[in-house]
């Protein structure tokens, strides 16, 4: 695998190849000469007609170069070395190289609106450099639309469009179905247990801030948990690691209590900011769990290493635990230690499931469209890549190979860029 990666890397990153294989090439040439079979080659002729043009549809960081080569139709075993500078006096910075038969190149990583000079040098297999050809100064222009992202834009629009479409669709009252999610059904049970046992309910909204979508999904579940806690007059505690999450949680719980018709029972002192420090927070929660022995624990949000520590502690004090996270690494831990676990998507579907509101359900349906898109892309890619490997390059039909491989390259290089 080491070889595979480094070859892959070298192919992609040409300057590295240049430096990395310099030594090898030199040795090779020496051996060649020493063998006495050498013909002393003259330096290759210089490339001509170099034109530099701003690369279209981008953010102005790329310039396209085209040149001609008067020597042999191709520079056998050699390559072109491309470099650029802001001033002719400056050292030219190497941008990359092309193989001997390619006479086009796109320089990337330029500063928009700054004039650059570009230089192309032909290098033959004996590593002799030709005269250089230098272009007129050209600046990359900042464009309105980033062309390389056009496919991404299309995908985003299809996806967002379908979400919006299904939201509207659902608003018209067409019923949409959601599969039963055991973990959310269990909310009543867990809070009920806490009520019967006269213990508290602990809700942990993850350890991320409000900018994490998982925290938002967690807050959605909190709304439900709080409502049931209010109906049962159970004690609900929400310790948070971020002060913004605390304020949001307070608002959420308060309105849930209002909805349950028990606004007077709301106590904001039960929703607290503890500390931003991950393990400080864990220590606080562990202490609280061991002392108060909550009967129900909810872990809904983004979790890291603390997932297992919290869930195992909760498990050992006999709490019913329901977890939900989109952190794949923590899912196995939650599954092993919790009663119910909402896995990834289920967790995001929670708010749709709990509210049952058409908007929410519609967005779920929109997600399915996204999945179909992805599936189509995967199937197309796999089929064409397979066909390409069957037909060529040494295989059956070079023409169809080029077609298939071309499609795969387009998919990989342009669509998925």
């Amino acid at each position: 695998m080491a070889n595979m990666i480094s070859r892959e890397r070298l192919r992609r990153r040409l300057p590295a190849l240049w430096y990395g294989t310099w030594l090898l090439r030199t040795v090779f040439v020496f051996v060649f000469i020493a063998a006495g079979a050498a013909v002393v080659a003259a330096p290759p002729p210089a490339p001509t007609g170099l034109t530099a043009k701003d690369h279209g549809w981008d953010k102005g960081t790329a310039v396209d170069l085209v040149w001609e080569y008067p020597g042999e139709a191709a520079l056998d075993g050699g390559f072109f070395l491309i470099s650029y500078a802001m001033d002719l006096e400056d050292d030219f910075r190497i941008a990359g190289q092309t193989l001997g038969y390619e006479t086009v190149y796109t320089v990337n990583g330029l500063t928009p609106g700054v004039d650059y000079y570009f230089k192309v040098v032909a290098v033959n297999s004996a590593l002799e450099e030709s005269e250089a050809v230098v272009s007129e100064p050209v600046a990359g222009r900042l464009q309105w639309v980033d062309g390389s992202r056009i496919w991404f834009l299309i995908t985003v629009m299809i996806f967002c469009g379908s979400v919006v479409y299904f939201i509207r669709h659902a608003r018209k009252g067409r019923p949409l179905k959601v599969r039963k999610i055991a973990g959310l059904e269990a909310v009543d049970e867990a809070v009920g247990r806490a009520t019967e046992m006269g213990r508290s309910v602990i809700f942990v909204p993850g350890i991320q801030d409000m900018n994490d979508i998982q925290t938002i999904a967690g807050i959605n579940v909190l709304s439900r948990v709080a409502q049931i806690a209010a109906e049962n007059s159970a004690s609900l505690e929400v310790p948070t690691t971020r002060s913004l999450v605390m304020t949001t949680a307070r608002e959420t719980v308060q309105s849930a209590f209002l909805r349950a018709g028990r606004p007077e029972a709301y106590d904001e002192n039960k929703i607290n900011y503890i500390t931003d420090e991950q393990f400080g927070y864990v220590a606080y929660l562990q202490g609280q769990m061991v002392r108060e022995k909550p009967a129900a624990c909810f872990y809904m949000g983004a979790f890291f290493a603390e997932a297992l520590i919290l869930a195992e502690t909760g498990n050992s004090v006999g709490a019913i635990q329901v977890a939900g996270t989109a952190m794949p690494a923590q899912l196995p831990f939650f599954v092993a230690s919790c009663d119910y676990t909402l896995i990834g998507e289920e967790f995001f579907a929670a708010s749709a499931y709990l509210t049952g509101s058409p908007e929410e359900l519609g967005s779920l349906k929109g997600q399915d469209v996204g999945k179909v898109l992805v599936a189509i892309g995967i199937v197309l890619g796999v089929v064409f890549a397979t066909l390409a490997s069957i037909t060529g390059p040494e295989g059956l039909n070079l023409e169809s190979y080029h077609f298939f491989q071309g499609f795969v390259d387009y998919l990989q290089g342009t669509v998925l860029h």
Partner: protein
Amino acid sequence: MKRNIPLLITAFSGLVLILAYFIPMTQSWGEVAAIWFDILASIAFILGGGNLIKLHARKMALRQAGWAYSAITLLAFALTLFIGLSKIGVSPNLQFPDMAWSGHYRESGAPFWWIYEYAFKPLTATTFSMLAFYIASAAFRAFRAKNLEAILLLGTAFIILLGRTFAGIILTSWLPDSLAGLRIENLTVEIMRVVNTAGSRAIMIGIALGVASTSLKVLLGVDRSYLGSGEE
């Protein structure tokens, strides 16, 4: 009003960030929005600190169970804050040798560094290390070969556990080179590279779509939970 203004701000800044991605002209707007976010994010520290004091002061005032812990917390908080802010024991920056406060609060040997090095660091490392213990007890309890999925999982777990250590190498080094792919360390790599990656990608695609649609709901104002509740 209380809801509409935040909704507008959300929708607007969300839109700007999206535009900035596709339209190079507006890239700098996106940067501005991100910088604003950073500034706002630091305000959260003040909010948090305030609540911390309130929470523990309340516990102490009401003499709730374990209020002594709260006292310790508050004391430690005040002490750290004071030492850090007043840069006690910090030598001044070489560029400004006359200004006592120009030094860096984290300077080694200074009291703040001391707190960090001898209190904070060992404490967090200890808490993290507890994972090892919990993993062992959870594995003992939950890893049961109950059905086919569990058996597969168990087999994979063994291979990975061994493959991540020298034991894997010893156990299967007798395999001839033609079967090198079956050596545990190579199996580990293949499992991670092929099986795990395929699975992770599937989960990631699902999650990414979930994130995208939730984000869209937030931008469109369908999901308002971040404002406190789903309903008006």
